């Protein structure tokens, strides 16, 4: 995987545009660009419309409809919805759950991949296959037993339960990916460390983890965002507002029809903003990360 921090597209030297052969080609080029700008507008428009309407007052919306620019910024709807679902609390739940899962799942993936990729334990092909299957299993096939087990063991409606479940689910993918990355780990480095008398524990923490840090950061990013976006299991395992995550709180609020038209825009805004923030923070990592999983 690339270890450069630059966006793979941006660090290509820009090839000089071919000499235009007459006006027809130039026009064609701009037509393609215009098509792409249209596509981009189409992708962005829903977000723009949500933001525009979330900051409208109810009367403004009623008078001018959803397409007019807001006549002044009014956070009334956002505030109302925020209080309705106790959004500050919900946001903290999501941060806590996703953050813990990202850390724990990377840790578990590293332990597994160390044994499978570096250690080459016997039967590793079958073990990896098991992880792959675990990664593919639809959660629909686990949800009821998990719900029942959580109820039996007094772990129902607890953030810890969701953290444990997603740590396992995400680390299935992480193990699979990291094992293939670590199986290509330069053997000379491992040999040198062994010559120096490093035990396995030191080998893992002082050699393998530092060298593969870029991959681990990408994995952590992915786990955070994936867990943040999860819906089915949090919906079932977290029933009280005390523990709910952002997508669940918004999805349930909409389903219960307790929100009117302008408040729906406000709820959309509150769902979008954290994701946009992550997107801006992680964009570089993500762009690099998508390529990690793409070619095995």
């Amino acid at each position, binding site marked *: 995987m690339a270890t450069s921090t630059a*966006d*793979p*597209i941006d660090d*290509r030297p820009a090839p000089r*545009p071919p000499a235009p052969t007459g006006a027809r080609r130039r026009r064609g080029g701009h037509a*393609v*660009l215009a098509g*792409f700008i249209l*596509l981009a507008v189409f*992708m*962005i428009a*829903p977000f723009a419309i949500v933001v525009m*309407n979330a900051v409208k007052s109810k009367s403004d919306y009623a008078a001018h409809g*959803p397409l007019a620019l807001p006549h002044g910024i009014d956070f009334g709807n956002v505030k109302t919805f925020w209080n309705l679902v106790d959004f500050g609390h919900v946001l903290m739940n999501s941060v806590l759950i996703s953050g813990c899962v990202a850390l724990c799942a990377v840790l*578990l993936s590293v*332990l*597994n991949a*160390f*044994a499978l990729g570096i*250690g080459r334990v016997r039967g590793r092909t079958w*073990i990896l296959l098991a992880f792959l299957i*675990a990664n*593919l*299993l*639809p959660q*629909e*096939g*686990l949800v*009821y*037993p998990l719900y*029942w*087990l959580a109820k039996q063991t007094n772990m129902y409606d607890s953030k810890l339960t969701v953290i*444990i*479940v997603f*740590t*396992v689910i995400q680390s*299935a993918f992480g193990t699979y990916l990291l094992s293939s990355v670590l199986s290509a780990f330069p*053997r000379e480095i491992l040999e040198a460390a*062994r010559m120096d008398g490093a035990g*396995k524990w030191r080998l893992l923490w002082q050699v393998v983890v530092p060298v593969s840090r870029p991959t681990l950061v990408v994995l952590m990013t992915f786990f955070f965002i994936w867990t943040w*976006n999860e*819906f*089915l299991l949090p919906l079932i395992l977290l029933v009280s507002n005390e523990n709910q995550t*952002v997508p669940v709180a*918004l999805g349930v609020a*909409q*389903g219960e029809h307790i929100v009117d*038209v302008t408040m*729906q825009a406000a*709820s959309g805004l509150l*769902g*979008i903003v954290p*994701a*946009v923030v992550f997107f801006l923070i992680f*964009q570089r990592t993500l762009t690099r990360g*998508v*390529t990690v*999983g*793409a*070619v095995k």
Partner: protein
Amino acid sequence: MALPLVPGRRRNPDRGYPFFLIPAAVLFTAVIAVPFVMNVGLSFTKWQGVGPLHWIGLGNYQRLWHDRTFWAAFEHNVAIVIAMALIPTALGLVVATALFDYIGKRFGPRTASVLRACVYLPQVMPLAVMGVVWGWILAPGDGVLNSALRDIGLGSLGHDWLGDPHTALYTVMAILVWIQLGFPVVVFMAGLQRTDPALNEAAELDGAGWWRRFWHVVVPQIRPEIYVVLLMCTIAALKAFAPIYVLTRGGPGISTDIPSYYSYQNFFEKTQVGYGAAIATVLTLLTLTVTTAFIIVQNRHQDQER
């Protein structure tokens, strides 16, 4: 990175490594293996979630076979696969290639980067949130889309998009295409980074047009990415619970129900746990079958190329 051959067995054999797998073994048993086996077991029973379990063998599966709702849900899921896997992959190929070798070259890599980011944006959003947003845009009466149609004089086209059984599934499909498009685009653009530009240039010198080069030069070179994207999107489409829950709850009627949501309804709304478990088991088998089929086809292709 060249791999030096590891010399024969060392004095210090690879002992101790299996210990690192113990935490995973314990956790995977508790969180995945046991629930999975329980779910398969439940699918042979009649149970309401409380009270006694009744063993009914293959009864649930016989009922599934004759259940029109299940078959309808299955058909809807085929539509969702088309919307989440086939269309985004095909569109994504064209968009990624055009961004990479046309826009990037003629208008600078910055332009291509910005456009790619726009297309990718819905991908980082929670599906449930996208459902909330689109549900609001498509609201009947004075929703955003219907208002826009009125403003441009096409008010007669105004429609309860998600509330009419004839249009609900197509509307959901369109939303899913919009959500999913960014993923193939980003993966394919990354794949195009590692292709050899000389091939494309040679074909261009031979006078091959853009479409011919796209089909005969570009697509074969990123075939591995195409397989991975198709597989990941297909699996995602089989689990499209969140958008269905938020957008339509499987309705109106059963017009947008899919097995994923149908199993949830049986588990938690109708308390027919055994039947829900049977649906979830079928969904699991389907996912594993699709994956196996993909891997077999992919390996066959690679063998042909060698």
